[in-house]
């Protein structure tokens, strides 16, 4: 039994969240592991849906033995009742809730349930560990909204989870360490990968050689991918970029071009590659919304943490991509350190040094920093974005309107550009277009304060607020009622999750011209 044990809510069940959960639970903490997906593992350890009956899931999986170890650890703690796993829980905010008389300050995690996301539950904890991961950055180019153009990570997720591919012939393009595994996975799954287009300039590699060589495992991994590319005869085009996607109603071809040493497209090098799919990405961005809602310090786009992975808000830890993009190995190390620290601090002691994990963290951070100097989107990518290119996919705001906001209307920061153009006001809350708008306008990309990490039905928002007054202190999913069981409020099946019920700014709240 863990009644009376300190309670830690871990948000995110990827490598960082799992490592943190196992480390904390092994040290006498009751862990509630809250995750949006149906199964633990995060994006990195995404596996085929169980109904698909994969007998050899490792064929599409990186570091399968690591996953097996995490899975076995989780299973043991679930069995022992030291970890409670809440899948299909989409966290929309975390709030500090005032201390009950004589008790520790606490936190309430609010999460919407299941794919429908109409009903919200609250989870109480003494401390919170944010392992919310990251999402992919894609810079725009003409035609990037055509069906068939997907993010590199999206192509990977659909393949790993649904065992489906976006077309018979694909181009993988952009910049970053994700492109290699995506290209090789698509090729292994039978897709003809017509080109791997990477803006990386191999001549920059020697400058980062020291740090890159410090991670021999990574170098070997890179060599394995390179061998697979050769085996699948995937043409590799370094110092190239996609300048346009074309097609009638869906993607039919991309135009790629070589980049000069100045980072500009070299005129006359354009060539057309017919394809049904383009998997494109330009790196990753940390999910920091929950940290920001809690008032944690964010440096640039990363949640700021100390050596123990503590944020500057007492009782809040952060680990993995949310503290800076660095990959799964770094996430595991940070998660482990964070879980140990949270356990010790909740017991009122100092954590034992985790020397091994700390060494891995140092090395992996150095490696990630070196990769950052190698993988860069083309310096002058914005030159290729024509005025009629849609930049904000949700609100269909073009590059021309974004530029006008600065040149004609005098906007000097992202928020003003957003207010003048609606770029960033749609469903995705600006997550997709923000780097593009920043690049097009020259405005600094600062953390956006998203009060709610995802759209929330207004009724649930009101109920969550009402619950805070005179709360009984228990979890909505308290033992005795399984997570996802009917809530105390009767669910109205006729209630539609309409946009007008959604607690975020959206143009459908005003009259649409017919």
């Amino acid at each position: 039994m863990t009644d009376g044990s300190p309670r830690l809510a871990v948000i995110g069940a990827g490598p960082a969240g799992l490592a943190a959960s196992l480390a904390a639970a092994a040290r006498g903490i009751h862990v509630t592991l809250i995750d949006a997906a149906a199964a633990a593992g995060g994006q990195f350890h995404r596996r085929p849906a169980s109904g698909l009956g994969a007998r050899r899931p490792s064929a599409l999986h990186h570091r399968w033995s690591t996953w097996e170890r995490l899975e076995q650890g989780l299973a043991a703690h679930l069995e022992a009742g030291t970890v409670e796993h809440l899948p299909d829980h989409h966290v929309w905010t975390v709030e500090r809730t005032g201390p009950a008389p004589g008790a520790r300050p606490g936190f309430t995690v609010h999460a919407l349930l299941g794919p429908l996301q109409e009903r919200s539950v609250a989870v109480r904890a003494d401390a919170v560990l944010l392992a919310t991961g990251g999402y992919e950055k894609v810079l725009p180019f003409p035609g990037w909204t055509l069906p068939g153009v997907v993010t590199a990570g999206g192509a990977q997720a659909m393949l790993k989870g649904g065992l489906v591919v976006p077309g018979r012939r694909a181009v993988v393009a952009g910049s970053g360490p994700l492109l290699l595994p995506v290209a090789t996975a698509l090729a292994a799954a039978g897709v003809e990968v017509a080109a791997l287009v990477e803006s990386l300039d191999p001549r920059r590699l020697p400058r980062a050689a020291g740090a890159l060589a410090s991670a021999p495992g990574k170098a070997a991994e890179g060599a394995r991918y390179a061998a697979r590319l050769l085996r699948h005869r995937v043409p590799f085009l370094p110092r190239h970029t996609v300048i346009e996607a074309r097609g009638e109603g869906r993607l039919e071809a991309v135009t790629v071009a070589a980049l000069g040493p100045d980072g500009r497209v070299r005129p006359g090098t354009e060539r057309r590659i017919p394809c049904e799919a383009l998997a494109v990405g330009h790196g990753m961005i940390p999910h920091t919304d929950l940290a920001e809602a809690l008032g944690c310090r964010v440096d640039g786009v990363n949640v700021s943490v100390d050596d123990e992975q503590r944020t500057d808000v007492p009782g809040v830890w952060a680990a993995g991509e949310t503290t800076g993009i660095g990959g799964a190995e770094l996430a595991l190390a940070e998660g482990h350190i964070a879980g140990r620290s949270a356990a010790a601090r909740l017991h009122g002691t100092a954590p034992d040094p985790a020397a091994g994990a700390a060494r891995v963290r140092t090395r992996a951070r150095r490696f990630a920093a070196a990769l950052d100097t190698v993988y860069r989107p083309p310096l002058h990518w914005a030159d290729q974005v024509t005025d009629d290119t849609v930049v904000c996919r949700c609100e269909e705001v073009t590059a021309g309107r974004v530029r006008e906001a600065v040149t004609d209307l005098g906007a000097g920061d992202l928020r003003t550009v957003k207010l003048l153009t609606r770029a960033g006001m749609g469903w995705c809350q600006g997550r997709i277009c923000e780097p593009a708008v920043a690049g097009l306008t020259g405005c600094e990309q600062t953390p956006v304060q998203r009060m709610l990490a995802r759209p929330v039905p207004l009724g649930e928002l009101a109920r969550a607020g009402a619950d805070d007054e005179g709360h009984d202190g228990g979890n909505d999913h308290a033992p005795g009622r399984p997570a996802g069981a009917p809530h105390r409020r009767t669910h109205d099946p006729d209630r539609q999750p309409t946009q007008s019920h959604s607690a975020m700014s959206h143009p459908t709240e005003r009259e649409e011209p017919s």
Partner: protein
Amino acid sequence: MNPLDLVRAEPGRPFTVTLDGRAIDVLPGRTVAAALWAEGVTSWRSTRGTGRPRGVFCGIGVCFDCLVTVNDRPNQRACLVPLAPGDAIRTQEGTGHDD
């Protein structure tokens, strides 16, 4: 090679759903987006402003580009919603509230 063979999949029995009234067979566990990709369908929404086609973009629930109407509920993220036998998928026009 195809993805199912690659992982030596032995899926459960397919079931039937409809896309705009047309019956399609779906392997258990697949999301709306995966089922439609398996059918070769890559767009199932037109935008509010210019009526342009959209489908999967981020594939992990962040971008909201793959919105679709399932069982008369508009604005579901096709990449997140798993299908069940008999589900009715409808392509979504604009806000999804006009039809």
